[in-house]
């Protein structure tokens, strides 16, 4: 009874396999390759455009002025193109953001990976992800209409556009990123290592801070660097709440302008096509690109170089 049954299934399979179409094996990899090439080509295209337009800009403005001048007045009658004020504005806001995001994000990660029960973790993580999913324009108006007035109540010097408010809000925005990436790195530390530490009489806090955190350090630092990169590239919040006053001053209560906010300002139509100020947005974009690229390479390097082998 069993014998013929087995036999027929074997035959059936043999039959099917000869009929199996080969196109999926031949055509699909080609399609997948095409999809991969599209994103590579797009990246190359963007970088090429950035380079050529930046080159056009530097035919009219010297690189030396761009790097050394401390004044950025592209729309003046006697324009001045020194990138430093925009870089200052960008870094001031990124620094404020990191002051918020690193401690809170890290503390959240430690709590989630070392203290929270499974149930708590399952509740908190989705909420964090919702925070990460809010459109940045919403954060921008939150900064302008809620945080700024709140700050003004405590610090009367704060003007309506300032660096502090968008800095804080960018920080809040990237908390989930720091928390989530750091938590992943800490959760990846094997249980046996925690057991070893507990068995030596460590308290829970000592296990978290002296064993798990150092063991996960590469992932944790990489999350910080990626967060800095995100803060530098953030656009909407700083455009809405930061103002448009390029300055090298470190006063966080007055208006600033970041690289991204400048690009928005010019893109919205303040400059005609082919003018120097039009090309300037590519030079600024190039600078921004270099900054974030360096940050991402750094993050990659850190997580590779200091990867712990468990």
């Amino acid at each position, binding site marked *: 009874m069993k014998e013929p049954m087995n036999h027929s299934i074997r035959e059936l399979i043999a039959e099917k396999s000869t009929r199996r179409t080969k196109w999926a094996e031949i055509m699909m990899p080609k399609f997948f390759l095409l999809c991969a090439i599209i994103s590579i080509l797009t990246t190359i295209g963007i970088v090429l455009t950035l380079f050529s337009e930046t080159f056009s800009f530097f035919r009219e403005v010297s690189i030396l002025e761009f790097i050394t001048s401390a004044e950025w007045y592209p729309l003046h009658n006697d324009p001045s193109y020194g990138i430093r004020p925009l870089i200052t504005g960008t870094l001031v806001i990124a620094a404020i953001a990191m002051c918020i995001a690193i401690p809170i994000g890290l503390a959240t990660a430690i709590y989630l990976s070392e203290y929270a*029960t499974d149930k708590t973790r399952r509740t908190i993580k989705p909420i964090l992800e919702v925070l990460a999913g809010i459109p940045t324009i919403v954060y921008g108006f939150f900064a302008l209409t809620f945080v700024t007035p709140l700050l003004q109540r405590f610090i009367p010097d704060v003007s309506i556009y300032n660096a502090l408010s968008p800095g804080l809000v960018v920080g809040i925005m990237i908390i989930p990123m720091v928390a989530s990436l750091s938590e992943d790195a800490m959760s990846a530390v*094997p249980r*046996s*290592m925690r*057991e*070893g*530490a*507990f*068995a*030596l*009489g*460590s*308290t829970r806090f*000592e296990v978290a801070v*002296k*064993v798990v955190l*150092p*063991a996960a350090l590469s992932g944790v630092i990489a999350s910080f660097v990626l967060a800095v990169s995100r803060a530098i590239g953030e656009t909407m919040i700083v455009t809405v709440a930061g103002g448009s006053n390029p300055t090298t001053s470190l006063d966080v209560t007055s208006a600033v302008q970041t690289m991204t906010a400048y690009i928005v300002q010019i893109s919205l139509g303040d400059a005609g096509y082919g003018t120097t100020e039009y090309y300037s947005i590519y030079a600024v974009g190039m600078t921004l690109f270099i900054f974030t690229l360096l940050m991402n390479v750094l993050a990659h390097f850190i997580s590779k170089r200091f990867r*712990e*082998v*468990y």
Partner: protein
Amino acid sequence: MIAEKAPKQMQEEVKAEEKIVYRAEQLNLWYGEDQALKNIDMDIQENEVTAIIGPSGCGKSTYIKTLNRMTEMIPIVRTSGRVYYRNENIFDKKYKVEELRTKVGMVFQKPNPFPKSIYENVVYGPKIHGIKDKKLLDEIVERSLKGAALWDEVKDRLKENAFGLSGGQQQRLCIARCLAVEPDVILMDEPTSALDPISTLKIEELVQELKENYSIVIVTHNMQQAGRISDKTAFFLNGEVVEYDNTDTMFSSPQDKRTEDYISGRFG
């Protein structure tokens, strides 16, 4: 005559009492609904090697992990009964588990050094307990590594990462890490099961030396190992202690049929 003998006997009893490190009374443990330990009554003697043998899933690892309350790490675990360490019930609410684990070291099945240097691994324990003096720490490192028979192999590369060591060396490093806080008892949960025969031999020799100063409880699934290194052996089966006796007695004339079957390799 009788009046003379009585106090002497009592003295001996008191002496024996002092030499008991651990006493379990009616110890039960459940993982959720599954009972893993059933009414364990067992004493562990000072400066002896006590081996725990038995087939997989018999509760031997669970038992050793209750001795330093590591079973608490698993949320679904429930226990009942009492375990006395030096006459104090470790399940008592006021009992400080960190203090217990400082006095009772543990070596695990798989070597689990920290991803730090060899030096930092050894000083981890002393450091968290507040020892900061650099000279003293250096001394502790040398003494502990010598105690774990690892010093000669690593003395020139103390600053290197512990993961660069072989499995057997890592396990001896874990023993050194344990010795660094000068514990009273060392619990070993199948410490050689992940090691090659030569490393196993080294650890076994080490256990013999450590016995002079420490009380050792060792779980092993290797009966020959139990026979070689232990003074007393407990045979666990389905969460119960079937037999607990001097190792020589147990291996030459087991009292229980199940022990005999297990020792002679009829199951397990």
